[in-house]
């Protein structure tokens, strides 16, 4: 049996120094922000905030200076991530680019692509969307059908992407297309592209979520021309590259902190001298949260050490999303209050928001079932 390796990760002094800096920045920038706004967590999209964060040097922190980065350690970046999440900062306008699109370009992109995109990402000026899922390809990502056919000077793209968060307000997407159909080998013939979302032939249709929110889209490609210099990495290497990207998408602290605002507001609600039952509930949540933080830090330590903690990241995401998903249920069981949308107290609205959004936590970035399949493979069961 392959074993999971969770060693305690320790944050070096420079990372704790960054904690002071980012806290000061967040206090200054978000002071007075309501709990309901903070509850949006990394779902909040605010270009102005992202630009300020970029100006302060908190985007692209680990990237080389020549691309606008700051050559800080992965652990310093980790502290910034967990602090922005804990504060409920609206990070969505730079989150994807900072977490996966930028690192993907650093790893597989051309020098020209790096110089063109990375500095603007670090300034918080470029928002990226992720073009992976399709109407018939969700968890079974390798079955995608959107075609990118070779034409003079580039590719012509036809097909549809779906669940493309923020495509309507982003600048670019990194999308996975099929450049070659290899019979019976669905993992072959896939390639990744940088797509300018303003390109001719792209139609973006909103998909309203169950809470009435608009972040999802269906993105149609009709004879969209993508020039050669927008191919990322090698033609045909898309699957290998995308799994690297997914590992980045799954390994961060956002996979256990999505409901942190509800825990904080629950503590405010029960007061400083709660009854026995509330104390037990809150103590248990604190223990789970502290433990998940240690697991998440452990993965961050492995990333910093240049290891490839794909399995451990899948474990943290599975345990973490179950935890963040459970919190509204725990609050319901403890207090039995009604979740509210617009009326009601700030606490009731934070509760309402998380009740409605919790189902997405174990869907986005790889479903619970996909992750458990990855873990089972790690255990040698498949």
């Amino acid at each position, binding site marked *: 049996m392959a074993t999971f390796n969770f060693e305690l990760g320790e944050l070096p002094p420079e990372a704790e120094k960054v904690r002071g800096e980012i806290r000061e920045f967040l206090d200054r920038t978000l002071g007075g922000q309501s709990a309901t706004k903070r509850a949006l967590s990394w779902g909040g999209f605010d270009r102005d905030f992202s630009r300020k964060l970029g100006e302060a040097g908190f985007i692209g922190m680990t990237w080389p200076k020549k691309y606008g980065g700051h050559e800080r350690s992965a652990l310093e970046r980790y502290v910034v991530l967990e602090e922005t999440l804990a504060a409920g900062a609206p990070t969505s306008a730079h989150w994807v680019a900072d977490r996966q699109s930028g690192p993907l370009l650093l790893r597989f992109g051309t020098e020209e692509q790096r110089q063109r995109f990375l500095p603007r990402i670090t300034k918080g000026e470029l928002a990226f969307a992720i073009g992976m899922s399709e109407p018939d390809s969700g968890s079974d990502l390798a079955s995608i059908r959107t075609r990118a056919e070779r034409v003079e000077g580039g590719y012509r793209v036809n097909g549809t992407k779906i669940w493309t968060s923020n495509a309507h307000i982003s600048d670019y997407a990194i999308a996975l297309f099929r450049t070659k159909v290899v019979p019976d080998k669905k993992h072959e013939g896939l390639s990744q592209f940088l797509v300018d979302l303003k390109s001719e032939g792209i139609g973006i249709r909103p998909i309203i979520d169950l809470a009435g929110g608009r972040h999802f889209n269906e993105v149609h490609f009709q004879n969209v021309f993508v020039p050669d210099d927008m191919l990322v990495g090698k033609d045909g290497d898309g699957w290998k590259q995308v799994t690297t990207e997914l590992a980045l998408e799954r390994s961060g602290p956002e996979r256990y902190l999505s409901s942190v605002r509800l825990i904080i507001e629950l503590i405010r609600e029960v007061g400083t001298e709660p009854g026995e039952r509330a104390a*037990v509930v809150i103590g248990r949540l*604190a*223990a*789970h*949260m502290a433990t998940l933080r240690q697991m998440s830090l452990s993965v961050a330590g492995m990333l910093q050490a240049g290891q490839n903690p794909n399995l451990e990241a899948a474990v943290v995401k599975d345990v973490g999303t179950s935890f963040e998903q459970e919190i509204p249920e725990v609050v319901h069981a403890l207090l039995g209050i009604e979740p509210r949308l617009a009326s009601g107290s700030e606490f009731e609205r934070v509760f309402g928001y998380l009740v409605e959004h919790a189902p997405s936590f174990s869907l986005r970035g790889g479903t619970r079932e996909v992750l458990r399949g990855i873990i089972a493979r790690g*255990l040698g069961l498949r």
Partner: protein
Amino acid sequence: MSDTRTLLADTCARLFTDQVTPALIESAEKGAWPGALWQMLEENGLTLPQIPESHGGAGGAWGDAHVVLAACGRFAVPLPVAETMIGAWLLSESGLDVPLGPLTVAPVRPADRLSLTKAGAGWVLDGVAGRVPWGAAAGHVVVAADSDDGPMIALVARGSAKVEPDVNLALEPRDTLGWSDARVLTAALVGSGLPAHALSSAGALARSAQMAGGLEFLLSQSVKYVTERVQFGRPLASFQAIQHQLALLAGHTAAAGIAAQKGFAAMDAGDAGFEIACAKIRTGEAAGLGAGIAHQCHGAIGFTYEHSLHFVTRRLWSWRAEFGAEAHWAAALGREVTARGADALWPYLTSR
């Protein structure tokens, strides 16, 4: 893990694989004292890993104790290893000599109180302590007791108490010891280096490591079983329903493992109140869920006495309740967290 701890883990695994057989555990369940195994543990320096050499220990840290205790949990070692480590720690930190041989500690239940009274040049002990692990079998009992001078640590010899034998679910001895005017061997005020509630905190920490180790056993044993067992013409491991259950068990095992590890690291850093509470809460919850999954994956054979799965699951069901169950620690932690206030939660968590 450091090289010396890897070596320590290897030593434990080798020794326990050879010695802690189902036959040995079964005979311990019938009341036999596995003296030869104890001897080997002592000879290998596994009983006092974190005690200074000046007090007869191996001179290591709580991180070393963690390695040994996790292995004890994984192999269901039927000996008071945790209790000996804790008893020796209470003694040495209070400036008292550590006797040779197995120790136990009392009281282990929050409601039980013992008292020491000055009698001539020494002290006498009174009171009743229930559920004392190996209360009758251990050579000495290290007690935490109140006195007119303040809280004290004292050492009493086997035979000083009236014993009512009992056992836990795993048939490990959990005896009631009653002392009446019993002369103690040595006594001292609780050492200033000891944290508040040192005995129960260290007990909870030790059980956390044992449970985390037990969960590791459940995971590897379950993976092994479903890989070998064939039904409907294919190994159980090929069924997605089984795969996902074991993935869930892996998650609980990993969480329990790091929660316990963090508790021991904090103990070595000198302030572990928060981390011990987290460890006991998280490992205790994982123990119940993990035992359920392991049994489900093993089917009927795992429910038999002949199969050895229960040596660990019965321990997990008892250990999670010992030295304070999850609810006990969660109430204390919840009161602490709420007293600090909502906006202090995150800063507090990140300061630990």
